[in-house]
């Protein structure tokens, strides 16, 4: 039986995630980790470790609060 699962897309972050974790001011960098609808990408897609993904999430949410990134769309 052939699996119907689509192959996973390559992670965005190819280097070590600890090199640079974008904070809420790096909006251009943070925008890469959002989908077209403004959702935060999963760890599978970002390639971040759990700790860095948490910091990324915090940065995106702070930027959203300040109106720098969208909540939707």
């Amino acid at each position: 039986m052939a699996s119907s699962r689509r192959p996973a897309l390559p992670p965005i972050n190819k280097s070590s995630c600890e090199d640079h974790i974008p904070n809420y001011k790096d909006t251009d960098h943070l925008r890469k980790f959002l989908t077209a609808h403004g959702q935060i990408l999963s760890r599978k897609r970002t390639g971040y470790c759990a700790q860095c993904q948490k910091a990324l999430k915090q940065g995106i949410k702070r930027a959203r609060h300040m109106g720098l990134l969208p909540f939707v769309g």
Partner: protein
Amino acid sequence: MTLYESMFLLDNAVVRESWNKAKSAVTDTLEKHGAKVRTIRRWDERKLAYSIKNKKRGTFALCYYEMGTENIAPMRREFDLSDRVMRYLILRTDEVPATELELHQAEAAPDFAVPAPPPDDLVEPEMGPIGQGDDEGSPQEIMVPDLDEVGGDDGDRPRGKKNEGKPSTEA
């Protein structure tokens, strides 16, 4: 005393009057609550990702200051009520970045001029997508005869049903 980093979203209408006036909206409140302002500078003026208080654009100020933790809550309340500060973010930090000190000094120079914000910062009052697609006159023209027709049909239906029902019961 704890070192804090804060970003403030300021109303462009105030910034257009004077940048120092807009900056004092922040610094006055901070100093009122016992903060020692280390640096404050204009971070950016940009389009917002979503409209806040009917504004499409805003000016961001980035500030580093030392303050007692007990004064944060009353300061937050004051910023919540402020018209000039649309949004704020208060974070604890370990040190003031060297670049911030340089930029703060550059802004304090007498020849530093803040560029005026563009005029289109207000959200235009628009109808929804239905109103945009149709002409303004056409829905009114359609609605009036529709209401009359619907009222006429409703009035006829019960009578017809009653008339139909009566013979069946009699028979």
